[in-house]
C-alpha cells in the first residue's frame, strides 16, 4: 500500500489518473465517498483533488483535522468553497482586466518549485490563466507563501501553525497533473511528492 492517500472525485477528467503508472506507483487512490470509512492510520498525507465534493468534505472536516493533528499532511489544490480545511479561507476569484493579471511570481525559493520557470506556470502555448485565478485570502498569519499573482495575491502557501501537521494549499488545479508536458512545470509533481515525504520525516522527527 502506498502511504499517500489520493481522494478521487470519480469525474470524467480524472479517468487518466486511474490508469497512470505515476499515480499508482505513488498513491493509494480511493473514491471520494469511501473516505468516511477509510482507516487513515497507514497514511502520511492526504491529497484532495480540485473536483472533490466539498459538501461531503465539510461533513468529514473533523476527520481531516484529527489526521492533521497527528502530525500529518494535507495537500489541497483547488478552490475552497466550504470550510473543511483548517485555517484555509474560502476562495476569492481575482479581478482580471488583462492577461498580465495572471502572471505567477515565485515569492520564496522552495524545493517544490525549484528549477521551475515562472513563465511556464503563467503561460501555456502563450495563453495565461490556467495556473491560478484567485486566492484563499487572508492566509493564516504564519503561513509561508510560495507563489503569488500580481498585487501580492498569494496563491500557494504552507501552513504549519493552524494544526500540529502541515497544510499545503494551492488555489489552482491538481499539481500532480503537471507531468509529461516537456516543460519545467513537470518538476512540480515529483518535487511535491518528495516534499511530502521529507515534510513527514520532519513532522514525525519532532523538529517542528
Amino acid at each position, binding site marked *: 500500500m502506498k502511504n499517500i492517500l489520493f481522494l478521487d472525485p*470519480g469525474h*470524467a477528467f480524472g479517468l487518466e489518473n486511474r490508469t497512470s503508472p505515476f499515480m499508482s506507483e505513488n498513491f493509494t487512490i480511493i473514491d471520494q465517498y469511501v473516505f468516511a470509512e477509510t482507516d487513515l492510520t497507514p497514511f502520511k498525507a492526504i491529497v484532495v483533488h480540485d*473536483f472533490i465534493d*466539498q459538501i461531503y468534505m465539510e461533513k468529514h472536516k473533523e476527520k481531516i483535522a484529527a489526521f492533521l493533528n497527528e502530525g500529518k499532511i494535507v495537500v489541497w489544490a483547488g*478552490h475552497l468553497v466550504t470550510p473543511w480545511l483548517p485555517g484555509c479561507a474560502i476562495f476569492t*476569484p481575482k479581478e482580471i482586466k488583462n492577461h498580465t493579471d495572471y502572471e505567477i511570481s515565485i515569492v520564496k525559493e522552495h524545493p517544490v518549485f525549484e528549477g521551475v520557470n515562472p513563465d511556464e506556470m503563467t503561460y501555456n502555448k502563450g495563453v495565461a490563466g490556467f495556473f491560478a485565478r*484567485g486566492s484563499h485570502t487572508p492566509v493564516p498569519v504564519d503561513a509561508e507563501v510560495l507563489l503569488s499573482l500580481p498585487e501580492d495575491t498569494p496563491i500557494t502557501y504552507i501552513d504549519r501553525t493552524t494544526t500540529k501537521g502541515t497544510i499545503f494549499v494551492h488555489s489552482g488545479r491538481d499539481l500532480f497533473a503537471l507531468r509529461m508536458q516537456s516543460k519545467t512545470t513537470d518538476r512540480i509533481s515529483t518535487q511535491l511528492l518528495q516534499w511530502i515525504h521529507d515534510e513527514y520525516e520532519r513532522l514525525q522527527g519532532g523538529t517542528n
Partner: protein
Amino acid sequence: MRKIAVIFSGNAPHMRTFNEPKYKQYIEELIYFPEFAEADLSRFDVLFIPSQLNEGLLMKNKEKIQTFADNGGIVVAFGPQPWEWIPNQQWEDRPANFWWWLEPGADSGLRLVAPEYDLFNYITLADATWHQHGVYWPVEGAQKLITTADGGAVLYVDKVSSNGTWIVTTLDPDYHFGSYFMPATERFLDGFLPWLAKGEI
C-alpha cells in the same frame, strides 16, 4: 416555466455555476447527488445532469434517470461522458482542441446545422464555441443542432430513444464558468437556461 432540477455534485465549479443568481432563478431545486437515489422527481419537468459527476453515483442512478425520461421528462446531459448511461449513447472521445483559435482565421470546426431551432433565438454558434472533448453519434431520428465539420454531434436532441426528450451536449460550460475561465461559456449558459425553462424544445 418548466420546473428544472439539477443534480448537484458539491464540487467547486458547480457550487459557483448553480448558485449564480442569474441561473438559479431558473432552477427549482439542486439535488445533492449522494441523496439523488431517494429524491422524488415527480414534480420536475427537466432533470439537468452536469458534467464531471462521480462515476459510481452516476451508474448507480442510471435507471432512475432513464425512467424520468421514459415518464415524459426532459433530461439534459452536459460534458464528456465516458460511461454508458444515455440511451443509444455513442460517445467518441477526442483529444480536446484547446488551441484551434491561436491560428489567425482558424476554423473552430463547429457547424450550426439546425439554425431554425428555438435554442438559437437564445444563443449563437459563437456562444457555443470554445473547445470540444469529443463527439456523439446519435441514433437515427435524433436531431443534431451543432456538429463538427465531419458531422459528429456536439449538441443533439433525441425524442426517439425514450418517451421523453434527451438534450445531450459534449460542451461543459457548467465547469468552465464555475472555474472562472472562458467567457463564451457564460454566454452559453445565459441563453441555454432561459431556453430550457421557457423555450420551444
